[in-house]
């Protein structure tokens, strides 16, 4: 799916938990997330902490969209 969006000419960032799969399916900008059942959250945290975590991750995704890449790139901390 990520490849078709990219092929259509739109920069796309893939936020996903299993980076090797994302690499396999051909994503170019990848932001690793927390866990499969809750990629952008963590029920073990408080509401506020969870929100901050999500904002940090999505912020990283926005940064990735602004970053030129040559090939598959994983944006970690």
């Amino acid at each position, binding site marked *: 799916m990520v490849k078709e969006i990219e092929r*259509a000419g*739109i*920069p796309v960032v893939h936020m*996903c938990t299993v980076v090797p799969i994302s690499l396999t399916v051909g994503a*170019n900008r990848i932001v690793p*997330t927390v866990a499969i059942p809750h990629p*952008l959250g963590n*029920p073990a945290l408080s509401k506020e902490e969870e929100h901050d975590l999500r904002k940090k991750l*999505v912020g990283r995704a*926005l940064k990735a969209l602004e970053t030129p890449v040559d090939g598959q790139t994983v944006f970690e901390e």
Partner: protein
Amino acid sequence: MVKVVHYLNQFYAGKGGEEMANLPPEKVKGFVGPGMAFNAAFKGEAEIVATVYCGDSYFNENKDAIDTVLAMIKEEQPDIVICGPAFNAGRYGVACGTVASEVKAQLGIPTLTGMYDENPGVDMFKSKTIIMKTKDNAAGMRKAVAAMAPVALKMAKGEELGSAAAEGYFPTGIRKGLFEEKRGSARAVDMLLKKLKGEEFETEYPMPQFDRVAPNPAVVDLAHAKVALVTSGGIVPKGNPDHIESSSASHYGKYDIDGVEFLTDKTYETAHGGYDPVYANADPNRVLPVDVMREFEKEGRIGELSHYYYATVGNGTAVASAKKFADTFSKELIADGVQAVILTST
């Protein structure tokens, strides 16, 4: 004489371009447009008895279009139905693929179509109908007809087709049994010797291949860009109005989030059957981060969040099916002026 029905879109039927894409199905006797070339290539062995055509938009947007087309084809009792070829036209490819596979499945009549490698219809329908390989545009028509006509004749006469490579169609992915000349161990030794010498060899079971797409340039001015959310994590409005399937969904949902500040357990849920849904149902923002995207919008970090988000269900491991519709909604994203996409997966 072999009786052929030909399926075309509005353009090849000579009815007009995109402005006529909403044309409902119609049928005329005899051939139209590229049908002439087919008739010539049949060299008197077959004849196009009728041509059915339909606007691409109409076909893809009206669920009953296929039934009308099927009824029109059934009346002719053809020996074979040829669709297109569709070259690299995505919606036309999907229409040709749908007609060809439904005619084969529901009417039991052999069908043939033709498409370019990257047409999304190839992956969607190659296991359901024979799809011949063509060039990416109508300049390849002569060549496509020359390749398709003899295959169509063989199929209409009930003859066995040669291998995909020999006949020029996309491998169907359907495994067919056969008895080889040599036993498996001897074939393995032959194959190993070729591999050791660096010679070409043909594996009997091709492993799935993954192609690559070059990355697009970075977004220069995100503060004025329209960003869309897409998810394979199955977040849908409560009640799953589009009935997105819980695994390897065959379609996607497009949902308006204009004015939605954040998702709640009262309004949204996950349709995904591939993970424990407790966490996503309790707080759908954990999969589709509408809440923080709104904040970024207000802060001016992004220009705006697109009014629509797209959702489907896909396991990371079952990506092939997603290709089917991703191509379609990508075109919509562009039409909506979306400049960047955040795709979230579980």
